[in-house]
């Protein structure tokens, strides 16, 4: 993998520069170089939606800044949580006085930095509440569900939370439904090829040729098993076997399916996989209400996919259906 970059240590800054130029209509820079915001934020009378996380997950996180999605995002180094100060400044950028919902993923660094940022916000009278995404089933057993990582399910959490905020929901309303969204969401990742943190210069994990890692994390965290590379049809079954029993998803349920590539896997292959996922769900009587197939939450140039299912009720449906506009997701 050869990179199109300048100095590896400036990757994040350079990327932010390009991103804010390319989306100057909808994205504004802030006084903190590691915070970008929706140009209309803080949106009057609306709860602010903030997220943040390490870089290298395009479109996540900044790609979900926009209309009816996130108002401000704290940006970390590659695969590394943003500083507490960045989260704090994102809160400030998003708060219109109605409070801020910080919807982020369950990683040690993010937990600590958000915790400190909330203390800073309290000192300035900004009310912040959090929902911590933990949709990644293989990252911990069900009785330790709070230890699970957040992965591509975060996109659905932002979609739902962002929609509720636009509908005029209070901070508690937004937090409640974002929590419901993630509680109803399960994901599993499978890795087929590793990725490299640019400054490190070599992959910090390997996936043998002919093998795949089931349950891999969004930074290459080890999964639950390494097995021979499966066909797309087999893989669909393998992934659904991990997530379907966990809530569980049952016949009659309506779901959103989000199938995201991890980076290098061609989108063509996602569709091949999706075909079987949809077939199996159909056989089980699980109704696909809406599906998203594409690169929604990547890990640099890792090979592989994340499959995410969210069980819907009428309130979640309404939020999922709301139009939105951002680099990562635009929906009429």
């Amino acid at each position, binding site marked *: 993998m050869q990179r199109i970059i300048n100095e590896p*240590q400036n990757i994040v800054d350079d990327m932010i520069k390009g991103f804010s130029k390319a989306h100057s209509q909808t994205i504004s820079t802030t006084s903190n170089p*590691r915070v970008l915001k929706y140009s209309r934020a803080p949106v009057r009378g609306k709860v602010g939606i903030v997220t943040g996380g*390490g870089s290298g997950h395009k479109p996540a996180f900044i790609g979900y800044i926009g209309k009816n999605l996130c108002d401000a995002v704290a940006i*970390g*180094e*590659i*695969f*590394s*949580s*943003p*500083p*507490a*100060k*960045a989260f704090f400044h994102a809160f400030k950028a998003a708060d219109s006085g109605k409070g801020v919902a910080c919807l982020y993923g369950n990683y*040690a*660094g993010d937990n*600590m*930095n958000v*915790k*400190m940022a909330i203390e800073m916000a309290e000192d300035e009278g900004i009310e912040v509440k959090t929902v911590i995404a933990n949709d990644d089933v293989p*990252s911990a057993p069900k009785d330790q569900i709070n230890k699970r990582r957040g992965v591509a399910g975060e996109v659905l959490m932002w979609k739902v939370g962002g929609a509720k905020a636009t509908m005029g929901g209070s901070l508690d309303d937004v937090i409640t439904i974002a929590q419901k969204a993630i509680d109803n969401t399960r994901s599993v990742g499978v890795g087929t090829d590793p990725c490299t*943190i640019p*400054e*490190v210069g*070599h992959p*910090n994990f390997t996936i043998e040729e002919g093998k795949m890692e089931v349950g891999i*994390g969004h*930074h*290459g*965290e*080890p999964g639950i098993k390494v097995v021979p590379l499966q066909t797309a049809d087999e893989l669909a079954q393998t992934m659904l076997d991990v997530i379907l029993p966990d809530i569980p998803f049952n016949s009659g349920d309506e779901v959103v399916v989000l199938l995201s590539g991890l980076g290098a896997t061609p989108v063509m292959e996602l569709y091949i996989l999706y075909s079987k996922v949809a077939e199996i769900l159909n056989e089980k009587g699980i109704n696909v209400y809406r599906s998203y197939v594409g690169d929604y939450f990547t890990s640099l140039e890792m090979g592989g996919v994340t499959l995410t299912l969210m069980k819907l009720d009428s309130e979640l449906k309404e939020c999922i259906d709301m139009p939105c506009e951002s680099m990562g997701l635009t929906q009429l």
Partner: protein
Amino acid sequence: MASFSNKNGVIITLDLIDIINANKQYLSDLDGLIGDGDHGINMSKGFSKAKKLIDETQDNLSSSLKILGTILIDEIGGSMGPIYGSMFLAFARNSKKHELIDEKVFSEMINNGLEKIVSLGEAKVGDKTLVDTITPAVRAFDEVIAKGESFATALEMMKIAAEKGRDSTKDMVAKKGRASRLGERSKGVLDTGAVSCCLILTSISESMNKML
């Protein structure tokens, strides 16, 4: 009671920064074994930035520690930003009112630093993190002082305890941080944070001892 002046203590902070920068590659390589290979890189970014600022202000130990801690929290992120940031800020907060740093002040500094780390990261001894380095180090310092030994001896014993703590992580199964996902596979390798924390405490011990 032996002591050194806060004013002259800037060198202590500069020394530990140098040590971390010198070990940038080593710490990253070590992190690569069971983590994501960026520990040295992450640390070095913040430490180098702080060094520049400290070089410019050259005030005293407390202010230099505050600069270091603030930069880690404001600009570095990751896990190390808040953890080491909080630790250095605690060191700064507990020393800033003192013109002279003696064993009592120093004990308050490191005890409060440890507290902050634990309240933030919620790691316990045995979880294979830097807590395994700093916890026995702080205890050793206090115990040696309680026995009536000198500040210098206590610093020396703190260093030895830190080294022991660091080595104890080798056979542990990680319970916190990235490596915890590896389960049993995390055994057999030192924890990188435990190593960097030992470098920091060792550097502090040696720099201070030179000033006593």
